[in-house]
Structure formats: C-alpha cells, structure tokens
C-alpha cells in the first residue's frame, strides 16, 4: 500500500497543530517522524490512522480517498508510548483480540498468537495479565497485538520512550528486524535523532506543525535542508554561529577566522550561519588548519562514555560532545577546535548552502 497525504492540515480551536503538508509514503517503506515534543507527530499519526479528520486535505491509500473513512474500516495498527493492553485480558487474549474482532478461525488465531509471542519472546507469559508484567514485557505484548494483524499501515508513536535505556536498545534492535520483514507502510515517531539513524529508512523531520524535510534518513542527517532540520536532527543540537564570507576568508562573528574550507569555496560572499556538530568539536585537532572556538565553561554533563561540555563566549553558546570523561570546572576557560571540512553553511534564509563532503571520512 502507498499512503499519500495531500495538503493535510489540522486546526483545533483556532490553534494550528499542522500546517498544510504533502507526504507520500511508499509501499513497504519504513518512515521515521522525527521532531521534538509538540512538533505535530502524534497529530499527524492520528490523521494517518483515521482517528482524527484533517481540517483540510485528503488521505489517499493506493489511490483511494479514505479521509472520511473511520479507523474501524481501515487496516491500521498502532502502538503507543504508554503500554496499552486490555487490562482484563491475559496476554494471549490481548494478542488474539484483533484477530477475534476480524473473525479469524480459532486454529489460525492460536497459531499466529504463538508465532507472534515467540518473535517477541513473551511465549512464557501468555497466561498472565498485563498488570503482572514489567514495562518492557507490557510493551512487547502491545507490539505483538499490533503486529499480529497484517495491517497495511503500522503506526508506532514513541513506543520505546517509557522504557529504560538498556531495554530500549534491545527492543529497538529487535523492532528493526521485525519491521524490515513487513510489507506494511510503517511510521515510527521519535524525538531522538539517534533512534532515527539506528532505524534507518526514510525520515520526515517535523518542526512546529510542519514537515520540513523528507527523505532518506542518513542523507537527511548529512544534508539537513535548513537550520531547523540541522538543530532537530542532532542531539545535542548543532552549534550555530553567524559568520561572514569574504575574500577567501570565513570570519565568525565571535572573532575567529580561517581560510574558506575547500567544500565552501563555491559560495558567494555574504552572511552565513555556520553549523558545527557538537561531536566535531574537540581538543585534539591539529592547530594549523583548524578553527578554534573559545569560551567559558557553563556546565559539564558526564555519562559513562562521553562528556557534554557547554561553554559560551558573549552571546554565543556552544556545546561539545566528546568521548570519554573530560572534567572542566564551570567558569574555566575552554578552547576547542574543529576541522574546517566539518563545517556546515546555511545562507541568510536558513537554507543549506554547503555541507561537508560525504566521502571525506565516511561521514559529514
């Protein structure tokens, strides 16, 4: 099935939740909706599912307009961020419920429930009630319930966000395999760029009720179409600094300048926003060719494997993401460098003007 959204918008009580948008999801495709909270991901999913009617526009499945069709008559399954199962039914009955409603034969139901339970590793829990399961097991049950019916559209609304870190990684990996084997159009909403990258497929980046970029996930990550995508599709968000490009010199407004890097030489002279990914900032780049950023440390966030160092100089705030533990005291002077071939340039309107060469180091 292909799912086409034409000029879809949603206005609730004078407040615009979705601005008119067009989106075509190919048959059998895996699509990530990436955006921060309140970007409109859930609203869009509810319209895709048929739970809500769009204010304008049409939802077209395989060339048929289904905008007015109730969710009951569509072939949709959905998984939520809360663990939603029928509280009064055992895990077995929960997984079987969509099949029972569809009046499948009993033997077929049993076979498919068993198969699904096995795929999701909950076959030993079939006789329990959802309340007797851990969060991860409850979400596995909800996933089994959604997957057991071979629907044409499968919607997953931040399904892993309420699980702890370890479980999330584990289930994400399993989901990737489970979903890859599907013919359905799969839509997966998340706030985490890392999750989008892990899952692959296509990504629609959402920002304040708009889809601002849609395309291959990795390509979108490497070539964000504008400033907003660059910020949303990087965690922590990409650092931005205004700059002036003139006479072969790139002069950042914070005072530092370097010769224009090779991949940006084609740009006209003028004002640009220079984007630097936090993980490209570091202490160790060779000083000769690299661009230095200096400031005063505000805060350091340590996790076991990496450090986030927030620092500022005047109005400019920066964040650097580095491997390992780097302890910097707040108030201390920080000097970081970035290799020029990592720089992004966005023009005055915010659109991407120049991105790092993909082939340089295998990444941007």
């Amino acid at each position, binding site marked *: 099935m292909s799912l086409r959204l034409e000029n879809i918008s949603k206005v609730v009580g004078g407040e615009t939740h979705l601005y008119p948008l067009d989106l075509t999801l190919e048959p059998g495709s895996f699509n990530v909706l990436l955006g921060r909270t309140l970007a409109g991901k859930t609203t869009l999913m509810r319209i895709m599912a048929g*739970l809500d009617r769009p204010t304008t526009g049409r939802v077209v499945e395989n060339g048929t307009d289904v905008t007015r069709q109730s969710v009951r008559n569509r072939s949709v399954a959905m998984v939520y961020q809360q663990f*939603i199962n029928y*509280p*009064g039914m055992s895990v077995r009955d929960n997984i079987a*419920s969509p099949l029972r409603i569809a009046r499948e034969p009993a033997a077929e139901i049993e076979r498919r429930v068993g198969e699904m339970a096995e795929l999701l590793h909950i076959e030993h829990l079939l006789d329990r009630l959802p309340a007797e399961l851990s969060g991860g097991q409850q979400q596995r049950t909800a996933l089994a319930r959604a997957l057991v019916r071979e629907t044409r559209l499968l919607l997953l609304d931040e399904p892993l966000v309420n699980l702890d870190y370890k479980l999330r990684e584990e289930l994400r990996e399993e989901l990737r395999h489970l979903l890859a084997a599907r013919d359905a159009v799969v839509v997966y909403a998340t706030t985490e760029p890392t999750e989008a990258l892990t899952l692959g497929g296509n990504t629609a980046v959402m920002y304040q009720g708009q889809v601002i970029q849609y395309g291959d996930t990795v390509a979108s990550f490497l070539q964000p179409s504008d400033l907003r995508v660059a910020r949303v599709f990087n965690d922590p968000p990409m650092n931005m600094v205004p700059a002036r490009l003139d006479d072969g010199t790139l002069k950042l407004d914070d005072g530092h300048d370097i010769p224009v890097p090779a991949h940006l030489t084609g740009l006209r002279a003028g004002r640009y926003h220079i984007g630097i990914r936090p993980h490209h900032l570091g202490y160790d780049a060779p000083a000769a060719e690299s661009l230095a950023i200096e400031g005063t440390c505000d805060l350091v966030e340590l996790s076991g494997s990496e450090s986030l160092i927030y620092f500022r100089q005047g109005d400019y705030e920066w964040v650097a993401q580095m491997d390992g533990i780097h302890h910097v005291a707040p108030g201390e002077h920080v000097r970081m460098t970035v290799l020029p071939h990592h720089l992004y340039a966005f023009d005055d309107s915010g659109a991407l003007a120049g991105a790092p060469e993909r082939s340089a180091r295998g990444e941007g």
Partner: protein
Amino acid sequence: MEKIQNQKAWFLVLPALAVLFIFSAVIPLMTVVNYSVQDIFGQDYANAFFVGTEWFRDTIRDPELQAAFGRQLAFSVITLLIQIPLGVAIALAMPTRGIMVSVALVLVSLPLLIPWNVVGTGWLLFTRPDIGLLGVALNELGLDYNIQRNPVDAWLTVLVMDVWHWTSLTVLLAYAGLRAIPGAYYQAARVDGASRWAIFRYVELPRMRGVLLIAILLRFMDSFKLYAEPFVLTGGGPGTTTTFLSQYLATIGVGQFDLGRAAAFSLVYFLFILALSWLFYTVITRMDRE
C-alpha cells in the same frame, strides 16, 4: 548487617492509643458486654445477676429479629444490585469535558450533602397521598399508593429513597475511575475495531474494578446500618414491614428499655458486620492479588 531492634517508637503512640482504646472503644464496648451477660435494670448494678448466654439465646431465637434480619439482608442486596449498575451507567453517561462536568458533578453530589433525617422528612412529604407530589401523582394515575397503609408501597419507597440518596456515591467513585483511564486505551480499542460493549467489558470495567469494590463494600456496610431515613419516613411500618435491624435494636433498647437483650443484640449485630467486612476485605485483597 545487624538489624537494630528498637521498640521505643511504640511509647510515642501510646497516649493516642490509650485514648482511642479506652475511651472510644474498649470501655463502651465492655459496658455493652457487661449488660449482655447480666440482668441489670437501668443503673442498678447492686441487683444485677449473671445470666450467662441467656440474652444471646433469646436474641437469636426472636422471630421478630429474624424477620428484621431477613428484611435487612434482602434490602442490602437489592439496593446494591440497583445502585452499583445504575451508578456505573450514570458515570458512563456523564460529560467528560467542559463546563458541564462541574454542573453534572454538583447535581450528582447534591443528595449526598443532605442529612439523613432531612432526606426522610423530604420523602415523607413527597410521598404523602394528600399533598405530596409523588403521592398525589401516583394516586391520580389510579394507583392506590399510600406508604402508611400499604407495606409494598412502604418497602419500595424506602428502597427508592435509598437509591436516590446513595447512588451518587457510586457515580462519583465510578466517574473517578473512568477519568483515570488514559485516552490511549480508547484509541487503541478504536484502532482494533472493538465494539462499545467490548470497550466497557475489557477496558473500563477492569480499570474501574478497584473503585467499584470499594463502592460495594462501603454501600453494603452502610445499608446494613440503615436507620434514620426509614425511621422518619415510615417509622418501621406499616406493622413491622420496614423495620430493619438498627431500628429494631432501638425499639428494644430505647423503647422497651430491655437493656440485656439490646446489648446481646448489639454484639451479634456488631460481630455480623465485622465478619461481613472481613469477608469483603479478604475477597477484595485476594482478587487484587490474582
């Protein structure tokens, strides 16, 4: 690691416990026990003599009391059978958002705010066949409705009055239970294509189970202690057709001043409610564990 046993904390709650036990529970209860095993006239302890279990045997064999007990049990069961489903139905029909929520909640809560004897008086006027709205209306319709004369009318009126007074409690509890169900459950059920009945049976009812069990427990115990409303409305009549346990107790103790029998009766009554409450509690906690 060695656990330090320190029981000093008990001393801190001792004064409160002492007041609670001695003045509000033990002493009054022991007085009742005292009366139940002796023949004492009024406060004349000097002429009291021990009668053993005679009062208890009397009480249990009393046909009037057995009849009152039967009426009581029937009343409690029927009133629950009406109030719980009715309360849930009203809760399901209540608005879920907007200003109407407050309006509905206030309207539903009103009967709960009215004192018991006022309810009785209100219904007494309401049902009078000469001036009461309900009484006159029913008689105009050709029904011979009179709660002073007709036992069936009296019985049904007490039942309707109790339903009117107390269904609101179930409504409020059930409504709270319903509101606590996340919207995603309803969405998920719609996506599955589940019917309205299936949503009620497999989502709403299981999620409301806790509050409904509490409602049943509260309403059962409360209805077992029913006193003021029928006392005002019918005075237990006509005859003894609406005399429930507590009213019969009052007749013996306060009316006939038969303190020995009243004391024995009180203890049996108390133990019965205690046993029932224990039974409910056990069943509820066991069901919760399952």
